[in-house]
């Protein structure tokens, strides 16, 4: 993978350096200072610091990480578990992969800090099976940590601070990224989200109290502990502090990952990728991975942080920015999107199982010029009955992008129905 220019921030500062993956180089760049400081504090203090830092989870939902850590039960003698979510299956997202390949020790240090903070004695890093290289990098890094007694028993000489880290290769399904689907898969079962409550903090991996965080979320933690809340809040916005790795793909000149503070305007993010390819006009942008509703050129100056995006009916998600130029047929986009969700629904919930099927069927029909006005109505009704009513948020993720496309690009759909064919040239690619 080509390492795309580090722009501004801290996470990817040393990603160009191959050695950064080794313990000595990582330490030389200040690695494990954060953990050292954390271990000098009471666990509760670490949680408080994380809370006030306001680090939002980078797995898509943007929940305050410190807050999540504070949900772990305190007065229990059951072992506690951390799970690091490296499933990264959201189309348009590829940031976690870069972090795993270039900064595995950042993730591991973050996990150790979290383990101290919540009292976990076991951590699982669940990585999607196709990510062979990331798995290799993390396995190597974990091995090095054990060698240096930075994990295992009495970590960093701290009596009683015991934490085992296991790298687990996933078995390949988008739904295994949903945290409870992941837990089932980790336990060796079919990846199917669990009914909540109980939430993982009460009943998680193997029934034990569990915290699940994204790869990137963990990777930020060492910097917060080492450099302080104020420093961290110096990046990004009030509600979304810190940087993130925006992954820009689609119709741009130089697709890639760019570390920028949260809240960087969309125009600037796309600008770092060289702008829309071939000088064409922008048609739409999916701002945060395929499950997020689309933006239009009118939104080009929106600050890329969740609080601003949600005002425009979408979310930051995983920060995977998918750019589409004027040649794009939005019905074909709908086909691609709905095909993905149709294939990936776990199938437990009626609306999601049948709804994703119908949405895809209808989109294909419209794209092939066989659509009717009844189909347009179904494309409005079906997503509406999927949203917010199912066991997990997958159904929302499947409904939202269709709702966004219907809201902003209804004309494209109508044109297909009117002309009984797709008005765009065949050469389209997403």
């Amino acid at each position, binding site marked *: 993978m080509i390492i795309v220019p580090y722009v501004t921030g801290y996470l990817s500062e040393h990603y160009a350096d191959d050695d950064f993956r080794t313990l000595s180089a990582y330490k030389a760049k200040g690695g494990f200072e954060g953990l050292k400081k954390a271990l000098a504090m009471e666990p509760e203090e670490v949680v408080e610091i994380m809370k006030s830092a306001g680090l939002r989870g980078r797995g898509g939902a943007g929940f305050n990480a410190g807050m999540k850590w504070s949900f772990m039960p305190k007065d229990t003698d059951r072992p506690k578990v951390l799970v690091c979510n490296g499933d990264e299956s959201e189309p348009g997202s590829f940031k976690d992969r870069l972090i795993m390949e270039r900064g595995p020790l950042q993730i591991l240090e973050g996990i150790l800090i979290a383990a101290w903070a919540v009292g976990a004695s076991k951590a699982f890093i669940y990585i999607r099976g196709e990510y062979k290289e990331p798995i290799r990098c993390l396995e190597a890094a974990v091995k090095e940590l054990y060698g240096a007694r930075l994990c295992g028993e009495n970590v960093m000489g701290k009596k009683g601070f015991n934490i085992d880290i296991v790298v687990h290769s996933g078995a390949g*399904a988008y*739904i295994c990224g949903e945290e409870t689907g992941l837990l089932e898969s980790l336990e060796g079962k*079919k990846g199917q989200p669990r*009914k909540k*409550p109980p939430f993982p903090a009460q009943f998680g991996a193997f029934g034990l109290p569990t915290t699940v965080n994204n790869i990137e979320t963990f990777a930020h933690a060492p910097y917060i502990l080492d450099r302080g809340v104020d420093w961290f809040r110096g990046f990004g916005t009030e509600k979304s502090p810190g940087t993130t790795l925006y992954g820009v793909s689609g119709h741009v000149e130089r697709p890639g990952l760019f570390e920028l503070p949260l809240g960087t305007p969309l125009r600037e993010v796309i600008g770092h990728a060289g702008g829309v390819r071939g000088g064409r006009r922008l048609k739409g942008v999916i701002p945060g991975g395929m499950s997020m509703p689309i933006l239009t050129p009118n939104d080009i100056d929106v600050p890329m942080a969740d609080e601003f995006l949600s005002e425009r009916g979408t979310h930051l998600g995983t920060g995977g920015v998918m750019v589409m130029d004027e040649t794009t047929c939005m019905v074909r986009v709908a086909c691609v999107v709905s095909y993905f969700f*149709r*294939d*990936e*629904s*776990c*199938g*437990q*919930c*009626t*609306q*999601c*199982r*049948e*709804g*994703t*099927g*119908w949405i895809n*069927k209808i989109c294909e029909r419209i794209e092939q010029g066989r659509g009717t006005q*009844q189909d347009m109505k*179904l494309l409005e*009704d*079906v997503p509406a*009955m999927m949203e*917010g*009513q*199912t*066991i997990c948020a997958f159904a929302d993720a499947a409904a939202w992008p269709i709702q966004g496309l219907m809201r902003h690009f209804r004309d494209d759909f109508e044109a297909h129905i009117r002309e009984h064919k797709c008005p765009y040239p065949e050469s389209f690619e997403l």
Partner: protein
Amino acid sequence: MIDRNATIDGMQVSIHADETVLEAATRVGVTIPTLCKGRDLSPEGGCRLCLVEVEGTSRPQAACHTKLADGMVIRTATDRIESLRRDILDLTLSAHPDQTFDASSPQTEFEELLAQYDLHRSSYPDRAMPATLDQTHPYLRYDPSRCILCRRCIDACESIQGQFVFSIESRGIQSSLCYGDDDSFLDSGCVACGACVDRCPTAAITDIDRIARVKSDRVTRTTCGYCGVGCQIDVRSRDGRITEIGGAKDAVVNRGHLCAKGRYAHAYQSADDRLTQPLLRNGEHLEPVSWDEAIDWVSTRILSIGKRWGPDALGVFTSSRSTNEAAYLLQKMFRGIIGTNNIDCCARVCHSSTALALRTVTGTGAASASYEDIELAKCIVIAGANPTEAHPVVGSRIKQAVLDGAKLIVIDPRRIELAEYATCFLPLRPGTNVALFNAMAKLLIESGQVDVRYLEERVDGWSELEKFVEGLSLEQSAQTCGVAPDRIADAAQILGEVGPALFVHGLGLSELTQGTESVMTLCNLGMLTGSIGKPGAGMLPLRGQNNVQGNADMGAMPNLVTGYQSVQDSGVRERVGSIWNATIPTRPGKTIPEMIDAAAAGEIRGLWIQGEDVAQSDPNETHVRSALNNLELLVVQELFLSETAQYADLVLPAAGALEQDGTFTNGERRIQRVRAAVEPPGQARPDWEVARNVACALGAHWTYSCADDVMTEIAAVAPAIFGGVAFDRLGDDGLQWPCPDRTHPGTRRVHESEFIRGRGQLICVEHIASPEHSVDGFPYLLITGRVLEHYNVGTMTRRTPNRTLRAEDTLEIHVRDAAREGIVDGSRVDIESQWGSTNVVAQVSQRVQPGHVFLSFHFPETHTNRLTGPQRDAKSNCPEYKVTAVRLRTPETQSPPA
């Protein structure tokens, strides 16, 4: 304290711990539609039909898996919610071809919902094509076109039967129900319990016999006529024919659950070869006669044999399949009118050792515990029993208890299904139980893991046992039973730490030369761990046939009259004799094996055999057949012309379990009603009526007009245990004896505060090898027993589609032995013991240990009991079915060396 409550549709509802919104709503009478949540199943959460509005949350919540919490304000049927539900049903319907479901005359839960929401057609265009039916199974059918993927069947199969047959293949709209890795219902691990059928809301899974949808006009609640579990069944019928059988939902014994036999195997009832009229021998042939003729003939013959050879030249075997009332009247007839105690029942050849052992050490020869102790148990010991096959409904309850965390110790030569669930499995050599139980007793005593208080307060013989086990060597015992010493130690440790324990035992203990001792030494463990009489613990022998318990209770024993009263006790003879207006003979009679020997020797000249096929079921078949041949008079009451009936001089057509009134007593001492669901075919008659009529022909003045009258007399004859039993009190779930008076609620657990015999008795007895254990030239030990699909000699099950499920008996042999003997799976082998030989099909398996082979005895052509020999338990007279030395010959080993 502040009252905590919530509101459902404007009603104040109190908060109960752990209650879901759905449960609370149901409690206050609010109905919330559900699809994936079955009445007695845990929530699946997928259908989303039960969504309700909860004030303060923007998203609707699923009532079936949301807990009701303080202050919740819930609305279950707002316009938004109702239209949402309709949309969901519409989406569900959208996955099925038109006309799959019929909302205009709803037959299923799903169709009722469609009707309720007025949904007759899905509004989605271009829908799916029908999928292919799976009709491979003789009883069950799966129609994927009707499956709405609610997953109830998956949960039912897992959480009720414990069979794990189903799973969901693929995901999203590709999802479909599948049988794990298997391709069809028939190939799957399904044991045909029907639990999934009863819970499927769409009839995607159905019983084949129910598809025709013959509307039944009658439902009869009665007791299953197969094994001794005594499940309650609802028998539906129309025009005198059985249409279907289902489990009675509220029954304490089975809670709606049944097995493949009870639920489905009823075709024998209307089989073409049922006996429909009395048949009298005329030379080589049996020829139809009228009942009057038959009764006249038989009473004359009985009287003349009695006069010529004395009453002890006559004897009777009562039937464990028949009712208490029939058994009672037959033994009364033989004792009171004919004047002999030659009365026995097939309990002799199964649990006589168990009954004798329990009686000796505890004071009563029946289970101390009840089935409900299974769920209460923390530790279950299964010894010499294979409940999931022979007592399936109890087997599944045990499995569920273990899945819920109970510890399980399995002691059996074979790797029975429950061994897979065991915390500790001890595959001992057949017939070495005494050595094993003694070793465990030694370990318990020597590690101090005994219930000292219980032993001091309630039990005799502790110090003797302590001294006795001191002299035993663990290594030597381990050697004897072929189990590693540390395995035995593991088992003893679990027992010591987790006990009191529930001891579930079967014929693998009883049918041995040391049968009685096997059970007594097991009782030692029961007493050392303070288990007998405690909740979730005690002794629970699994009785084989539906009414084998009842037959013994009724006095179908040579030494005991009704209610276990000794014929040698003059007080008993006087009291019972005065009720009967008869003289009861003093000398105990002969047991079944003794009667057969006596018949062979010409001492017994006339036998009445009620519903028992001794020519197939009793050991040493050749000997049995020659004994039958030797009789002057053989009367057989039967459903079919059985192997035994072919030797009869008079065959009387009997009514089956589904055709008569009376009671059966199950293995937990529960006396339950049997009610006729249909009329017997032709002139077949209930056994008790025949006994009454013959007795009258013999000169008695018996005036019983119904089974009820007989029970009234039984209560008077044995007041200590049946005094309070009467038909009007039996209701749906019967009464567990002892039940001494009409206000007594029956007895769940015997020996609760003290043993019936006063103090329990620990027994010191050494292991003695069976003569079959080391017979030169016969290197294998044969174990005989039953399989799930069939019942005993198969008279009933072989006449049902269970034959498709299993068409023959097979000889299980370990892979290593098979390889050595040159036996391949499915090939025919000659098997030979000192007593006889037969030829069977081999099934290469890992269920048996090397050196052991297993053979069932369900098919007459197998002649399993040509192999079993004359060995018996000296105390109980129970034959040794479980250990026979055999050798095997294949065509290769027979061919002369080149």
